[in-house]
């Protein structure tokens, strides 16, 4: 563990990326204590309020007899701290809930992408040249040439009623294209690794193929796998933001992309509602930058050759 911290200290990209991501996770987890989830939905409070504290509500905290009452009062006081949108949603509540939802979508896409990518990548890389490898590689090449986002649009506009699309459905839709890149990336790593002496050694000592993949190759490619995970999560978040930015999905839910869609729908930028724009945009940029930094930092471990030599 200490080695890990020492390493992160020397790899600022990874450190910053992990730091921001953990910060966002804490924001959405701890933030839930200070909000009333219902405030993230329409008609919760007054519309178009700029950021500010509700001092009246805060002043009454002392009068409340129970702890629960005090907490409720605190939530009321903090309700407008990020301002509200034109539907009377509290932006603090929307962003806390929305960040969580968007991270969930990313996690689903990440699990999906990495799971299938690892399975196919290791098998095709280890058994390169086999029929399975040829088929999978061709499919991957075709999928990678297709603009994934447009395919997502096509799928999302014909799956079950988009207004009822749950976080899980959204996550699965954006996972459809998430597996191809990890498959190719892992395959190429396995291809180069399988010629190394320690794999030869394992083969000579009569280890079976699956055993070599699990015990010899996987541990050595761990940084690479985590990097693929970060990339898949990034792809999933990006895909979901794009779909929601076009208004596809459940518009009542405060997904980060949906908040952006409503900004455009209500022309918040023409009405000078800077808080409605800057807050979700900052969170989105922080989240995506964190994922990129993590992948960039891990790339340094996975491919030591790209380490900053200058």
């Amino acid at each position, binding site marked *: 563990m200490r080695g890990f911290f020492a390493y992160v200290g020397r790899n600022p990209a990874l450190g910053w990326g992990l730091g921001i991501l953990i910060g966002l996770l804490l924001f959405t987890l701890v933030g839930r204590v200070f909000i009333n989830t219902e405030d993230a939905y329409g008609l919760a409070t007054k519309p178009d309020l700029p950021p500010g504290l509700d001092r009246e509500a805060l002043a009454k905290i002392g009068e409340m007899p129970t702890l629960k009452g005090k907490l409720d009062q605190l939530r009321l006081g903090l309700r407008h701290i990020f301002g509200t949108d034109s539907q009377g949603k509290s932006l603090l509540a929307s962003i806390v809930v929305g960040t969580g939802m968007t991270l969930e979508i990313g996690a689903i896409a990440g699990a999906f992408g990495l799971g299938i990518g690892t399975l196919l990548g290791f098998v095709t890389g280890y058994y390169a040249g086999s029929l399975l490898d040829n088929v999978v590689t061709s499919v991957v090449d075709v999928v990678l040439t297709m603009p994934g986002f447009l395919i997502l649009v096509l799928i999302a506009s*014909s799956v079950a009623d988009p207004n009822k699309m749950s976080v899980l459905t959204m996550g699965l839709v954006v996972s459809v294209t998430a597996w191809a890149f990890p498959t190719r990336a892992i395959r190429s790593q396995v291809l180069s690794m399988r010629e190394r002496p320690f794999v030869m050694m394992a083969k000579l000592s009569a280890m079976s193929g699956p055993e070599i993949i699990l015990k010899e190759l996987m541990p050595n490619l761990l940084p690479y796998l985590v990097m693929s995970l970060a990339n898949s999560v990034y792809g999933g978040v990006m895909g979901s933001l794009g779909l929601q930015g076009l208004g*596809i999905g459940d518009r009542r839910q405060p997904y980060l992309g949906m908040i952006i869609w409503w900004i455009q729908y209500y022309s918040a930028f023409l009405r000078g509602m800077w808080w409605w724009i800057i807050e979700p945009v900052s969170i989105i940029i922080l989240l995506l930058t964190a994922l990129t930094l993590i992948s960039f930092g891990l790339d340094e471990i996975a491919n030591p050759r790209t380490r900053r030599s200058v």
Partner: protein
Amino acid sequence: MRLSYLLRRLGFLVGVLWTAATLNFVLPHIAPRDPVAEQINQKVATMGLTATGIAEQIESYKEIFGLNKPLWQQYVDYLWRLLHFDFGFSIVNYPRTVNELIAQSVWWTIGLVGTATILAFLLGTLLGALLGWHKSPKAMGALIPPLMVFSASPAFVLALVMIYFLAFRAKLFPLGRPYGFLTTVNWSSFKFWIEVAYHAVLPALSLILVSLGQWSLGMRAMMITTEGDDYMTFAEAKGLKGPRLFFQYGLRNALLPQITSLAVRLGAIVSGSTLVEVYFQYPGLGNRLGGAIQALDYYVISGIVFFMVMGIALATFFVDLLYPFLDPRISYARGT
């Protein structure tokens, strides 16, 4: 160029088009809902069966999804129609065909995305090469974090920030649209061109900022790798001057993976521009697609998606064909 390389690339092109066409055909069949029927039903419900073109639309709907033929024949017919670029009618803007809508908007997209991509590629590559070059001032390293943030962000989110700060607050640029509200379209007037260019600055800038980060960071890594090569040391030992070393020895060789990236990234660039067009109300294909999604105009959605996939696949194909001419070292006997 080897014939097998050409055939392999051609195979991919066909594979991509076939996959896209099949998805277009299969999705409405397996989906739990039928967007076309939904939309037509809604139209019948609001306007009655006598509304213009309803009968023809139902007929063309039956024909396109050939409800009275066996499934395999429907599929073959569908592929045949796509081969003739017959994407059907727009349900919302009946009797306009999807082709008409595409023809109207495609040039706006090509102009915007083409200009932005070329500018970003040139600027980003040069910037990245300078960032990776050992003789560049150390202060340039300060550019890397902002470039990274831009490369990670979606273009339409940057677009929103720019609309607010540069267009609404600073009033430097228009808020959107391809030309002024009251301007008459006149492509032979120079003034009109200037106006179009002025309106395209912000949408293009949001696309350029995103790509700039990606091109320059990729180029920087390649430049650092190239500088470590023996021929660079040799060229420097020979006494070659800085600019020649930089352009003809460093940049020339580090450039090749950038060309490959161009082929790989075209899809993402076009996807990014789709949203940017929507947010700037720019009348290109992306905005049409956005509008069709709002109105659930399924033929327009699937037609435009297929058309864009085709455009990207063709562009990728040509970039791939260009590559062997740029990099004579690689033998294409066994594909890439």
